[in-house]
């Protein structure tokens, strides 16, 4: 493994809501009552079955309770051992899966308030993403506005699969709000499962769903670029989280080829897709869907044609590597520093204020 450097920025960790009961103090009276009256159950997504090996690395699984559900666990397993100066908490709780937009808005607010009170207030190394009710774009924008003044929120979190492709114009008010407030848009693996998670239908196996998430990232990148999101919001940073990145070069080759042939259909796409990605899109390091040979992985880094695209992540507590091997072997020191510090700082406008490297 390549040595990790001090004061790295971990761009994808997953503190978890221990249970719906933990959110009760942050719901209004009506929704608190509804939880008990209606017997509302947990909002856990099928993308992370509780006992699945991927959902939590074996040595990170607590004897009791959900993985990564207490600050003590997150400090002891993620923040301290990797020496992170900052870690961005992306809470994956299935608020986006709901069909009622009112309910989604209430629970998104509860998750964000819980995150602010129980994590950010207590641990200065943590930053977080704003969970938004994508079921209703106006409500999503309201949620962004509600937290925008709190600089510990550095990003708006969306799932890679929802009701519609993310480039669609109906979502643009979310991007306008993010750009206005210097928030990145984080797109994380996962679906609201309102559509089958593949272009063909529902898979039989969890392994298919998880592996297929990369295809959804490919489709969303196509959508964001072709709809002209980055022409309209040139300062917007989009970060693909738990997406894998080894698919990116080949995807851009194909997208570029068709853009050359079909740009009459999308005339607002005024730069080659790879150029747009270099200026506006970043990807988290983990998971690495790597070839078995180290030399092939280094070739893939060449294919990316930029040392600015990748952001360090452990994806804690998901099982993406063992021990401290967060950074693959053979990566030159200068690139390690870019991935762990410089690239995250350049991506998340709100981090620079407090990071040691910028003081």
């Amino acid at each position, binding site marked *: 493994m390549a040595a990790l450097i001090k004061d790295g920025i971990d761009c994808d960790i997953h503190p978890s809501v221990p249970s719906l009961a933990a959110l009760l103090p942050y719901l209004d009276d009506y929704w608190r009552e509804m939880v008990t009256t209606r017997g509302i159950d947990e909002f856990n997504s099928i993308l992370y079955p509780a006992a699945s090996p991927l959902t939590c690395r074996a040595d990170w699984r607590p004897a009791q309770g959900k993985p990564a559900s207490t600050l003590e666990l997150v400090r002891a397993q993620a923040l301290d051992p990797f020496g992170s100066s900052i870690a961005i908490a992306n809470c994956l709780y299935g608020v986006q899966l709901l069909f009622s937009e009112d309910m989604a808005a209430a629970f998104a607010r509860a998750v964000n308030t819980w995150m602010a009170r129980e994590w950010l207030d207590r641990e200065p190394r943590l930053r977080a993403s704003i969970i938004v009710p994508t079921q209703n774009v106006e409500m999503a924008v309201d949620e962004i506005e509600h937290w925008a003044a709190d600089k510990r929120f550095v990003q708006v979190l969306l799932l890679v699969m929802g009701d519609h*492709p993310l480039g669609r114009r109906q979502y643009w008010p979310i991007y306008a709000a993010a750009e206005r407030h210097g928030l990145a848009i984080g797109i994380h693996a996962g*679906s609201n499962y309102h559509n089958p998670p593949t272009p063909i*239908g529902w898979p*039989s196996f969890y392994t298919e769903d998880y592996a*297929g998430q*990369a295809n959804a990232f490919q489709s*969303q990148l196509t959508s964001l670029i072709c709809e002209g999101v980055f022409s309209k919001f040139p300062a917007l940073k989009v970060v693909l989280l738990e997406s894998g990145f080894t698919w990116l070069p080949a995807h851009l080759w194909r997208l570029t080829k*068709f853009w050359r042939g*079909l740009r009459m259909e999308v005339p607002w796409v005024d730069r080659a897709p790879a150029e747009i990605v270099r200026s506006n899109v970043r990807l988290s390091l983990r998971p690495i869907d790597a070839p078995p040979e180290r030399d092939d992985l280094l070739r893939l880094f060449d294919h990316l044609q930029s040392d600015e695209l990748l952001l360090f992540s452990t994806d804690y507590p998901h099982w993406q590597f063992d021990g401290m091997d967060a950074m693959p072997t053979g990566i030159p020191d200068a690139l390690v520093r870019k991935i762990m510090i410089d690239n995250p700082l350049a991506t998340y406008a709100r981090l620079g204020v407090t990071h040691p490297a910028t003081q």
Partner: protein
Amino acid sequence: MNVQTRPQDSAPLTARSAMAIADCDIHPVLPSIATLYPYMTKQWRDYLATYGTSLRQGHQSGVNPYPKAQPNAARRDSWPPGGGAPGTDLDFIRRQHLDAHNIVLGICNPLTPSGQGLLNPGLSAAMCHANNEWQLHSLVTPEPRLRASIVVPYEHPEAAVAEIRRYAGNPAFAQVLLLGRTADLMGKFAYRPIFRAAVEAGLPVAVHAFGYSGQPITGSGWPSFYIEEMVGHAQAAQAQLISMVMEGLFEELPDLRIIMVEAGFAWLPALAWRLDTAWEKLRDETPHLTMRPSDYIRRHVWLTTQPMEEPEPRAHLRDTMNWIGMDRLLFATDYPHWDFDDPTQSMPLNLTPEERHALFLGNALALYRQG
């Protein structure tokens, strides 16, 4: 890709490429729907005339949701001088394509209105059969360089199996043809009889881009643009391959050969690595698999090259082709479509003579057991 930037002269069409070529994706087109009538019963002719061909999408024509970039998605110069639509005139196909490019083996992949994927399974079976008879009598018999595909009504597996058995052993047919977007993932047991029948017949199964699954064409709903549909064939193809591997299709049928047609190829290595990475951690979920996903892919999957990927620098494409295996790539032009790959111009790498031979001819001859 065929982007015409200046007017072409009317020089005679002659063989510009001395090398013999196999073209694994040619699209002859029915001159008219009536061409099928001699091969259909009156019941289905009447049904067709009254109710037409309805697919798992709302437009009767089957193409309007994402209008193509060119009329009939065709090269501007592919309209036969004697009239008719591109791909309908065998003589013109010979002159403009087979002779001009020294195509010694051409695989026919009939598309709409082939009858594949229709809502009405009986009509689908009747039209697919008629398409097969049309290929046999009007294309492959008069033109021995061409081979037909067994077009099957894949949403009616029983009828699809019957159709495969009907032509098994007939050297005019080189493969079984499916479209890339089926109503459910192809690895599922419902489709298994089709693949078993193909193996019994000793034929590879080609999965050609397009078709309608009835689901949104991304995992996140319907995109807006034709460019997204075109790029997205790669995601549909990946979903199908993931399903085939994980459902154990290749485990059950070790002799099955799959050809992914017109969905790109450069995405394959990253998909295989991703599947391996996930499977290594989750292998207790799929105990019916006895090899790594990438091993199945290496053993069972071929891909056609059109539309050719063109990275800068070009050397990156060589890495990718090496990762896939140069023996698994099949040259294809997609004639007469607008995104045609010209055999003399579309290969962006300097291949060795051995590699050129394999990619442009040898791999196809071996796969299709020709010569």
